[in-house]
C-alpha cells in the first residue's frame, strides 16, 4: 500500500475539509442564484451572470489577488469582518475555502440552473392550483425535480474546489497544516530534491478522491433521474 506520511495526510485531510466546506456553503447560495437566473428577469441580470462566470475566465492568480485585496486583514470587507465579527480569512484554511468556493462557483451554478430551467413549469402551475404558495412550490416541486442537476453541480464544484491552486496560493499562501492543500503540497514537493515519491503518492490520492466523487455522482444522478420519471 501507499506509505503516506503524517504531513501528507494533513494536506489530504485539509483538502477534503476545504473542498467539503466550500461546496456545502456554496450550494445553497448557488441554488438561490440559479433559481433567480432561471426563473426571473430583473435589471442587471446579465451583469450577475457575467460576474458568476468571471472566475472561470480570469487568471486564478488575479482572482486570488482580488480576494487578498478585498478579504485580507486590511481589505475593505476583510477588515470589517475581523473587527466586528472576528472572522479572519487571510492565511487561514477558511480563506482557502473561500477561494475554492468562488473559483468553483461557476461550475456549481451552471448544472443547477440548467436543471431548474428544465423543470416543467406546468407542474409548478399545477402545484399552485392545489394551494401551494410560491416558496412551497419551490421546495416540493422545483427543487426535488432539479435534484440531479444540484448533485451534479455539487460534485463538479467539489472536484474543482479540491484541485484549486492559483487563487488559493495567492490569497492564503502555502502554509503546511493551515492552507497547504494537496495541490500546493504537490507543487512544493516538485520544487525540492527527492520529492518525487511523495508527490506521486499525493497524485495517487487525488486520483482516488476524484474517481470516488465521479462514481458517487453518477450513482446519485441515476437514482434521482429514475425518481423523476415516476418509476
Amino acid at each position: 500500500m501507499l506509505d503516506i506520511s503524517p504531513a501528507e495526510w494533513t494536506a489530504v485531510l485539509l483538502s477534503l475539509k476545504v473542498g467539503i466546506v466550500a461546496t456545502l456553503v456554496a450550494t445553497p447560495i448557488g441554488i438561490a442564484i440559479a433559481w433567480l437566473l432561471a426563473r426571473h428577469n430583473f435589471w442587471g441580470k446579465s451583469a450577475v451572470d457575467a460576474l458568476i462566470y468571471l472566475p472561470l475566465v480570469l487568471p486564478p492568480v488575479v482572482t486570488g489577488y482580488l480576494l487578498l485585496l478585498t478579504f485580507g486583514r486590511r481589505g475593505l470587507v476583510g477588515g470589517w469582518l475581523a473587527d466586528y465579527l472576528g472572522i479572519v480569512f487571510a492565511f487561514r484554511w477558511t480563506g482557502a475555502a473561500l477561494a475554492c468556493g468562488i473559483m468553483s462557483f461557476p461550475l456549481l451554478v451552471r448544472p443547477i440552473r440548467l436543471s431548474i430551467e428544465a423543470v416543467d413549469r406546468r407542474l409548478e402551475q399545477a402545484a399552485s392550483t392545489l394551494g401551494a404558495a410560491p416558496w412551497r412550490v419551490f421546495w416540493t416541486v422545483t427543487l426535488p425535480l432539479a435534484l440531479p442537476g444540484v448533485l451534479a453541480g455539487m460534485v463538479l464544484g467539489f472536484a474543482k474546489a479540491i484541485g484549486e491552486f492559483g487563487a488559493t496560493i495567492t490569497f492564503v499562501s502555502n502554509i503546511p497544516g493551515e492552507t497547504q492543500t494537496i495541490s500546493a503540497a504537490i507543487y512544493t514537493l516538485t520544487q525540492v530534491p527527492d520529492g518525487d515519491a511523495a508527490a506521486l503518492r499525493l497524485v495517487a490520492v487525488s486520483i482516488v478522491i476524484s474517481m470516488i466523487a465521479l462514481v458517487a455522482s453518477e450513482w446519485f444522478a441515476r437514482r434521482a433521474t429514475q425518481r423523476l420519471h415516476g418509476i
Partner: protein
Amino acid sequence: MLRVDVRKQLGNLAIEVAFRSEGRVTGLFGSSGAGKTSLVNMIAGLLRPDRGVIAVGDDILDDTSAGIHLAPHRRRIGYVFQDARLFPHLSVTQNLDYGRRMNGVTFDRANQERIVALLDIGKLLSRRTGQLSGGERQRVALGRALLTQPRLLLLDEPLGSLDAERKAEILPYLIRLRDETGIPMVYVSHDPKELRQLEAQVVILRRGRVDAFGGPEILPGASADALALESRDRSPGAG
C-alpha cells in the same frame, strides 16, 4: 354562481368574454385557438386579465379596477389539466395528499375514502405515476383536485388526450362527480357530445368572444366529427 367579464390581449387574439353561469356544469365550447384555455387559466389565476372581473359566488377573485388579483394558491379552485400533470417524483398517494399538505388541513380519512371510491382509484394508490395509463392518470388528477375541497372545479379538455374507449371510461365518473359532490364545474371541450352528456350550460367561444350562450341545445349537433364519435360509441362493445 360564476361571473366572468374579462379582456385580455394575447398576441393576435383579443379575448373579450362576459357571461354569468348558474349551472352545475358550465361548458366552454369552441375550436382550438378560441381562447378556452386562456379563459380557464384566468379563472384559475394563472393568467391575469388586462381588465375585468372574475367572481365565484360572493367572492371576487379578480377585479382590475379595484386592483384585486388573488394568487392561484389562495383561490381554492381545483384544476384538472388535459395532460394530468401528476408530480412524477411522488407516488399516487402522495399526489392525492399534496393539496391537503399544502393547505395545512388535517387528514380526513372519510373524505379521502369517499373520493377514492368515487373515482375507483383504490388499486392505484401504491403505484408510481409512471406506471399509470392515460385514463388512470386523469382519474388520479381528478381525485387530487377534489381532495383540496375546491369551491369550483376547472376541467380543461380532461378527455382530450384519451381515445374513445378511455373517454367512455371516464365520462361516467364525471357525471357521478357532478351529481354527488355538488362542486360547480367549468368544463372545456371541443366535443359537443361530452357537454350534452354533462347537461352543461354552454358558452360557445369563437376567436376570443362569446358566440352564443345557453343550454346544450345550442351545441352544433351535426358536425361530422361529433357524429362520427357518437356512432362509434353507440356501437356494441364500446365503453
